[in-house]
């Protein structure tokens, strides 16, 4: 076979943005090559310049940005020498791009068909019929069911996953040789994400399209790419093959990225989650010498801050490179493992949910949405329960009912001795409010932008009746800031002066103002950068242990769940599919849905997991399937019985419950999704 030729070559590329404050160097000295048909991952936190690089490759930096150094060559031709017309042609035929937000990439007022065929008809002069045929063929290629129907649909009539497939089809239509994928699955559910990754892998095989996959998720990069480039603060800090880098990350930042992601394939006693401290340095305040120095555990004064560190080849055999002076001397230290909680027999139940129903009556046509159906599970005091499932499965509805933001239709939520199911907020006594608090998902919305941090925490302290007088409130605010490891001076800051992680800490401080007995955390880390996620996860776990708080965590991130949860409830279309301890749920016997969820979750390790990609879409909650709610997508469907009869709740040892027609013995016979022998030993 011929040696594949280089398709895209970046040679010492630097990009700056011109702002009122002067030139901001967003990318400095990046060299990267992508061969024909190759997939390269570009990894890093937000603000590292990944997307800027993608825009530069497209010649689309806008008025303020410019390539100020180096050269970008596509198929042997320098971008800088191309006329605007040629660049436009290259964008069409040479390079396609898929953005993160599919809905934003599609015009909501145009039918899919019109949007797909537009480029072909206008720019290529293809006839309307031929364009339509090509579009339908491409829609079929991205595995959209019923392409004819999709052609006539408007974007809002498609699900998020379908929209992203349409965007991919749109990028593929002009048959580009390179596809830029800028976080294409970040906004999607894991099961949908797994489908898109499968699709991209398939397209690589069938079309031989080269790909530059931009992501913060090392697990996804491992599933799709052969090579990885890790970017930090505008520079590449490490490049190499996936196999090599995943086995031995060499740069401290790469090690940091691996060690701050909780993995669903490892039990938490084997996990060593370490946040990367600090934040990405802003482009115009980069330190001299090594750019990662301020956050590096191996920083050596006088050496690391002396000269700019070059990207050094690791050995002659591979193309692995690393930008670290000390890469030969350092290795990740084994860190203290999680101390197992004593699983005493005297586990006391603090929250007992039984046969909980929540039904929404839609105004139009009297349609009924059964958001929660017959939920039953217990939460032991001082432990963490995670409720997992795809979006739209009723997780947040349950949280709202529990918190009293809405009332249940039927059933019971017994918190200690009180039934909360039909007790709305305004009828809950003050002490109950103090005992039940919540941590929210979006750090930008959790705090009121109008008031200082201190005032917001202080108000919670006073209102929940912990302290009354001024001095007492202030002391408590300082204590709470300390608890969430923020300096006391933060009390006078406004939310907009804080980073996302800091806002989330303030949100946690506010929730713990009255020493609550139970805290509900709705996706507490999903909106944060990976390095910050680890810190917040650790913080939540520490506070919980110190204060003996019970946590109910709503999450779709199975790695996070495995790391933090003692008990897990898996929900699908408003019903509990499986419930049990974390060990039970993450090992066979699985409910087929749990199995699919686990196998869809990207794992930032070399262990290749079994993959089950669910077909079809999440059914509408307004018209749930008959029989078993999961029957329309279940890969292990038995037959007619699944369509007609609600499955029995099968009780297994230790309180593990599975809602399925398949007998437990047979469910137990499947191999584990994460095979232990494939798992890399960390220490």
């Amino acid at each position, binding site marked *: 076979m011929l040696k594949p030729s280089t398709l895209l070559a970046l040679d010492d590329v630097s990009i700056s943005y011109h702002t009122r404050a002067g030139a901001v160097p967003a990318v400095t000295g990046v060299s990267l090559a992508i061969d024909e048909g190759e997939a390269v991952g570009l990894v890093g936190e937000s603000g590292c310049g990944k997307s800027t690089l993608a825009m530069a490759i497209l010649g689309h930096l806008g008025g303020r940005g410019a390539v100020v150094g180096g050269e970008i060559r596509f198929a042997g031709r320098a971008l800088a020498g191309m006329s605007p017309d040629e660049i436009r042609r290259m964008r069409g035929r040479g390079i396609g791009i898929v953005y993160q937000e599919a809905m934003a990439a599609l015009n909501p007022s145009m039918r899919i068909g019109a949007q797909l065929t537009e480029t072909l008809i206008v720019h290529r002069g293809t006839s309307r019929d031929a364009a339509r045929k090509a579009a339908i063929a491409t829609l079929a290629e991205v595995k959209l069911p019923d392409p004819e129907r999709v052609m006539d649909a408007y974007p809002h009539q498609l699900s998020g996953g379908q929209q992203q497939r349409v965007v991919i089809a749109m990028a593929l239509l002009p048959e580009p040789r390179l596809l830029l994928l800028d976080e294409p699955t970040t906004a999607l559910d894991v099961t949908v994400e797994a489908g898109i990754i499968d699709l991209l892998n398939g397209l690589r095989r069938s079309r031989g399209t080269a790909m530059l996959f931009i992501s913060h998720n090392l697990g996804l990069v491992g599933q799709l790419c052969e090579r990885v480039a890790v970017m930090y603060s505008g520079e590449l800090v490490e490049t190499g093959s996936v196999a090599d880098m995943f086995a031995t990350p060499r740069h401290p930042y790469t090690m940091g990225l691996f060690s701050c992601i909780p993995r669903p394939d490892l039990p938490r006693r084997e996990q060593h989650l370490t946040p990367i401290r600090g934040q990405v340095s802003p482009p115009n305040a980069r330190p001299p010498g090594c750019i990662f120095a301020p956050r590096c555990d191996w920083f050596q004064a006088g050496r690391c801050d002396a000269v700019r560190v070059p990207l050094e080849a690791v050995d002659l055999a591979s193309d692995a490179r690393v930008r670290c002076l000390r890469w030969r001397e350092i290795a990740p230290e084994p860190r203290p493992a999680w101390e197992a909680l004593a699983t005493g027999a005297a586990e006391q139940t603090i929250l007992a949910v039984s046969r909980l129903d929540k039904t929404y009556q839609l105004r139009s046509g009297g349609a009924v949405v059964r958001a929660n159906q017959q939920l039953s599970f217990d939460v032991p005091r001082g432990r963490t329960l995670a409720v997992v499932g795809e979006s739209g499965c009723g997780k947040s509805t349950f949280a709202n009912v529990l918190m009293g933001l809405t009332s249940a239709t039927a059933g019971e939520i017994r918190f200690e001795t009180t039934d909360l199911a039909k007790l709305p907020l305004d009828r*809950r006594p003050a002490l109950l409010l103090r005992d039940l608090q919540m941590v929210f998902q979006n750090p930008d919305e959790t705090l009121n932008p109008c008031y200082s941090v201190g005032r917001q925490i202080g108000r919670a302290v006073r209102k929940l009746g912990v302290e009354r007088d001024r001095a007492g409130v202030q002391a408590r605010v300082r204590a709470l800031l300390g608890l969430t490891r923020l300096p006391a001076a933060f009390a006078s800051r406004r939310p907009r002066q804080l980073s996302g992680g*800091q806002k989330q800490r303030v949100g946690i401080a506010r929730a713990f103002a009255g020493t609550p007995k139970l805290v509900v955390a709705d996706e507490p880390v999903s909106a944060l950068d990976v390095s910050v996620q680890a810190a917040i996860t650790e913080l939540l776990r520490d506070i919980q242990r110190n204060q003996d708080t019970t946590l109910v965590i709503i999450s779709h991130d199975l790695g996070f769940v495995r790391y933090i949860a003692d008990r897990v409830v898996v929900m699908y279309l408003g019903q509990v599919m499986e419930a049990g301890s974390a060990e039970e749920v993450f090992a066979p016997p699985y409910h087929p849905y749990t199995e699919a969820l686990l196998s869809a979750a990207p794992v930032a390790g070399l262990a290749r997991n079994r993959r089950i990609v669910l077909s079809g879409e999440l059914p509408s909650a307004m018209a749930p399937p008959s029989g078993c709610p999961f029957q329309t997508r279940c890969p292990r469907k038995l037959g007619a019985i699944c369509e007609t009869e609600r499955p029995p709740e099968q009780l297994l040892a230790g309180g593990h419950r599975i809602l399925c027609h398949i007998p437990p013995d047979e469910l137990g016979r499947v191999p584990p999704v994460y095979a232990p022998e494939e798992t890399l030993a960390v220490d």
Partner: protein
Amino acid sequence: MSAAGAEIAAEVLPPPSRGLRFGWIRRIGHSKVATIGLLIILFWAVVAVTAPWISPFPPNLPIRPMASAGVRAPNGAVFWLGTDHLGRDILSRIIWGSRTVLVYAPLATACSFVIGITAGLLAGFKRGWIDEALSRITDLVLAFPALVLYIIIISKFGASGINIVLAVTLASSPAIMRLTRGLVLALRTRAFVAAAQLRGEPAWRVMVVEILPNASGPLIVDACLRLGYVVITIGTLGFLGLGLPPPDPDWGGMINDTRKFALVFPHMVLFPCLAVCSLVLGFNLLADGLRELVTED
């Protein structure tokens, strides 16, 4: 790991700032447009306050009819802007007339905002039947042409300052209610609102303390625009003869009284018109400038 956490927080102190809630109010000086608008408004405010001292003649005193600008009065003083058909000094009447406008326009606007914001907060936050009822009432009022509404109210209840305020309030509060309701709808689902409810804050406090300040930017911009609009409305009412009862000076009334002489003595109409224009321009410029500052925030 806890140590690492402490460092995270301590190390990256964001740049200190004074962190004002309404920081943009202090930054009005940064916007040229807003500054000019504010200066025009302040000019008229000073004129209104100092009217008794700066006006050369009593506003309702007939001295010498139909005098052009610059003509001398019998006592030697100058009619800088001339006199009207009854011989009253136009400059003095404009000066005294600014009092009418600068009392009733802000008063009417304030009343509309109190009612509009209250209704908007209730409708947007409580939703349900309250929202339905308030929205339908709003639709009803907005279905009438505003001018017709004014004419009906004033001719029914008589021309007086208070009735002007009532009419303007009735006609403009629905639009403010709609604006507020829209802002509240976007804000009520924010997590900090849920957090306030979860600690047991009463509904009024959630609305007034948590939600309203976050909606203040667009509301303040709208208030400036509306002030200008109300100045025009008061002028219009005066022009239609529905303004303050004569002989008290009122810019719209002055234009109305003298419009039949406009072709021969344009100054009688021109100067009151310029007065209305400049004040409205002031409010509009201020609103434009504030809009920039608010969105920049």
